């Protein structure tokens, strides 16, 4: 059971870390200064959440594991983030849409996780929830602005939906370790938050004048370590320093 719980925690941590890393690529490249800072703030929030999860996982793992070894020294197949968070930033609209889809998910997940029996996970969820609630508010407004904006912004949002929607199915497909943790009472049953996620997504999309795709073939695998080709590049950049100069310190 312990290994399943560790995998589940790593899954939560990897989602936050990889999305934070992706968002951080905008640092210094945002469309305007204010949004550049907003994006960087979200990035830092996510990396902070990842650290809390990694520290907890490391304490369960023992054997010299730390938050750093978990983030910097695992290989691609050992990462359990879902495919959605590792996708390209694309344009601002695509980044925003990715953020909205995942923030919507994280908000429901963390809300539910607060009342589950693992006290440490519940505490991390409670702390992260305030940040995620803002991410959701911010990204929802942007999806509406761009979807309901100019013809070009609308078309770009359609393209972003076309690119990203196929990765949303995985959010609600439990991995084996997740199912085990749900039975144990430590993990959130994804079936219980799926309806609400769809409802909120539909609400924002409808206000934005964007269609919710139907009958799309969903790609999965990330939670089990089978990633898209993007993941290797992300880790190459993320882990470069520790790989090239092992144990390098600031």
């Amino acid at each position: 059971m312990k290994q399943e719980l560790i995998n589940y925690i790593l899954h939560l941590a990897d989602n936050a870390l990889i999305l934070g890393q992706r968002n951080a690529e905008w640092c210094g490249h945002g469309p305007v200064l204010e949004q550049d800072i907003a994006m960087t703030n979200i990035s830092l929030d996510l990396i902070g959440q990842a650290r809390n999860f990694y520290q907890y996982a490391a304490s369960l793992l023992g054997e010299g594991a730390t938050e750093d070894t978990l983030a910097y020294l695992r290989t691609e197949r050992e990462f359990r983030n879902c495919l959605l968070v590792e996708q390209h930033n694309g344009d601002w609209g695509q980044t925003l849409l990715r953020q909205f889809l995942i923030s919507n998910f994280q908000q429901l997940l963390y809300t539910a996780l607060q009342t589950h029996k693992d006290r440490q996970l519940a505490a991390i969820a409670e702390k992260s929830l305030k940040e995620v609630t803002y991410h959701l508010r911010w990204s929802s407004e942007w999806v509406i602005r761009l979807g309901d904006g100019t013809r070009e912004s609308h078309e770009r949002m359609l393209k972003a939906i076309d690119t990203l929607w196929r990765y949303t199915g995985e959010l609600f497909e439990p991995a084996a370790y997740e199912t085990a943790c749900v039975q144990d009472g430590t993990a959130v049953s994804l079936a219980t938050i799926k309806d609400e996620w769809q409802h909120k997504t539909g609400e924002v999309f409808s206000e934005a004048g964007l269609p919710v795709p139907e009958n799309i073939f969903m790609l999965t695998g990330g939670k089990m370590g089978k990633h898209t080709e993007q993941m290797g590049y992300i880790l190459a950049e993320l882990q470069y320093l520790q790989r090239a100069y092992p144990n390098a310190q600031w």
Partner: protein
Amino acid sequence: MNNFLKKFYYGDIPEEQSGGQYVTKEGKSDWPLWEVFIRSKQGLDHKHVGSLHAADAAMAIENARDVYTRRMEGVSIWVVESKYVHASNPDEAGSLYEPANDKVYRHPTFYQLPDEVNKM
């Protein structure tokens, strides 16, 4: 290149619709300027902390949250579009402010304050 220089005082631009900017590269595609006021804690006044660009008031408040409250600076935010701020004219500083210079008797410094009054 029809841009010609015209002098405006900060914020006080009668016909300008896009906030405090007059000469812009792209004209209407730029967002207006907003002034940001932050209250650092309950009971204190909102203080002017700076300005930023945003498309509307909702975005201005979120931008202010992201730009000006990252280090726990505030508990409340006001924003106002810069074009609604009217400023005194620096050229008139002499007649506006200098007459007060030699009127020290306007300061309440000629009284002996009791010790109990310690917040003056």
